[in-house]
């Protein structure tokens, strides 16, 4: 059963175009020129119930515009959208009872008050049955482990704690779909891990459909079974996330920190990007070599103090994909 259906979705903006020069400045006042920007250019996809989907793309790719249209904040220029049987543009408030959203930059929680106050308010805004609400809240509190945080003013919470509370807030009304925009931004590794666990739990146990936007490759890799990549308003990839990794991540960067100074690092198959006295960064083509081999080599020849393994940045992967698409 499809919870989201998008067909031939288009969104165009008219931006006032001002040309330089005094004469043009006057003309601009009298007869402004408009430039047409295609933010979303013929998008089609559908999402079935219980999917955990990553919706990604570089900045300006049309992601936020699409999400805004799905939630009814923005009207499409043309095309069809159906979310849970509603037309978001026409039935925004009705749809709002069934969806939740977390925008990392725009908090839902009231800053000076404890989270519980916002939860209680939301329960009233969504007109929830009080008993149902209390039961569900207890469940959320346990799942997110925010019991101790409930009565602390939000401004006193750490970013990770606040994020957990924000996501919990978006679930008070048991939405069928939630839109998560950059849920782990700015969080430390432990906090990120925690949030990911919660999201996974929601999706697996509660069958909540999750529409995730993130620049964090770790989020995408660990959570999303399916990934859609947009760029220039078009879908350039729609498929299982592991295909993305398998086909498009071609290299890894390994950073090693040693006890003793590094003289030579003669590992065949790795390109040295940076080299210091006690550290070295190696770019590894993983289609030709395994990290395994590199690490064995390193351990055999040096006293390793620290190891870091990096994926090439997602933007790079996407850019690569786009370039590959063009060919």
């Amino acid at each position: 059963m499809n919870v989201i259906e998008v067909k031939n979705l288009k969104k165009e903006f008219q931006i006032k175009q001002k040309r330089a020069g005094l004469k043009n400045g006057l003309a601009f006042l009298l007869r402004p020129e408009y430039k047409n920007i295609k933010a979303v250019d013929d998008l089609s996809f559908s999402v079935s119930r219980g999917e955990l989907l990553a919706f990604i793309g570089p900045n300006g790719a049309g992601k936020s515009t699409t999400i805004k249209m799905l939630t009814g904040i923005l009207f499409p220029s043309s095309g069809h959208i159906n979310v849970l049987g509603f037309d978001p543009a026409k039935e925004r408030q009705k749809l709002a009872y069934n969806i939740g959203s977390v925008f990392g930059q725009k908090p839902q929680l009231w800053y000076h008050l404890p989270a519980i106050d916002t939860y209680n308010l939301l329960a009233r805004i969504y007109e929830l049955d009080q008993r149902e609400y209390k039961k569900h809240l207890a469940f959320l509190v346990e799942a997110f482990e925010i019991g101790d945080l409930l009565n602390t003013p939000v401004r006193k919470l750490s970013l990770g704690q606040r994020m957990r509370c924000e996501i919990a807030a978006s679930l008070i009304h048991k939405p069928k779909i939630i839109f998560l925009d950059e849920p782990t931004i700015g969080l430390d590794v432990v906090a990120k891990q925690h949030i990911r666990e919660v999201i996974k739990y929601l999706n697996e146990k509660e069958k909540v459909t999750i529409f995730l936007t993130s620049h964090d490759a770790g989020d995408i890799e660990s959570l999303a079974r399916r990934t859609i990549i947009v760029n220039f308003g078009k879908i350039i990839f729609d498929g299982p996330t592991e295909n993305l990794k398998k086909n498009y991540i071609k290299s890894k960067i390994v950073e090693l920190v040693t006890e003793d100074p590094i003289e030579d690092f003669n590992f065949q198959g790795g390109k040295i990007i940076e080299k210091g006295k006690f550290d070295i960064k190696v770019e590894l083509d993983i289609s030709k070599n395994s990290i395994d081999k590199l690490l064995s080599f390193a351990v055999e020849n040096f006293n390793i103090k620290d190891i870091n393994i990096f994926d090439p940045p997602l933007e790079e992967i996407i850019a690569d994909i786009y370039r590959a698409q063009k060919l």
Partner: protein
Amino acid sequence: MQKDTSLGTYLSLTWEMVKMNVLSAMEYRVSFAMQVIGMIVNDIGLVALWFIFFEKFPEIRGWTFQDTAVLFAITTVQFSIVMILANGSFRMARMIANGEIDNLLSLPKNVLWQISLSKTEVSAFGDLLFGLVIYFFSGNLSFESFGLFILLSVITAVIFFNFIVITQSIAFFTGNFGEAAVQLFHALLGFTLYPQTAFFGVPKVITLTILPAFFIATLPVEIFRNFNIFSLGLMIAFAIITFFIAIFIFKKGLERYESGNLINIKI
């Protein structure tokens, strides 16, 4: 299927929102107290000024200190009603420019209502208290008078609110209208606080048509001094008409916003 939200729900929700706003402000206990007290002092200053004035000039064209007291009472009570229940409306233009209303659009409640209640000016409680006290200084102590006073305050509060919504909604069409809207607001306020009979001549026409100062201050005090059912009816009609105009302009503006053709839209 969800049924439409009832008025009763909106009323109880309004109460909740105001409570949250006040609680939020009370986090800063001292600041909260100082604001309320500060506003009372502010109002006392205004009354003191005019008291001194009327000591020297007991009557201006039939207008006495008592009349100024009524004027102040109606104005401050009306002002405090708007500041308590709809303070957020003053920030509307800025909220639109910053895309802050997206959050509100994702909640299943009326957007204008949400914008209005997004903030409560706590010092307005000082105003409210002061308005009620100064009313009693005007010497009108009958139940009827008090009832009329409350009625007039509520009607003028609605007119005031409508005016704010109309001027702020222009931001939907032109981008941030902030500075000019603030100027307009202060001009409006300034007009309401001077002995009203002092105004005459052509500029009064401007006052009548462009700024509803006439309806917010002059007319209600006139009605209070010399009750006239037709004038009262006129005020109520004006409140209702401007209300529908305000809602209409806001709705159109919101549609425009959702079409995404604001000049400073962020893609």
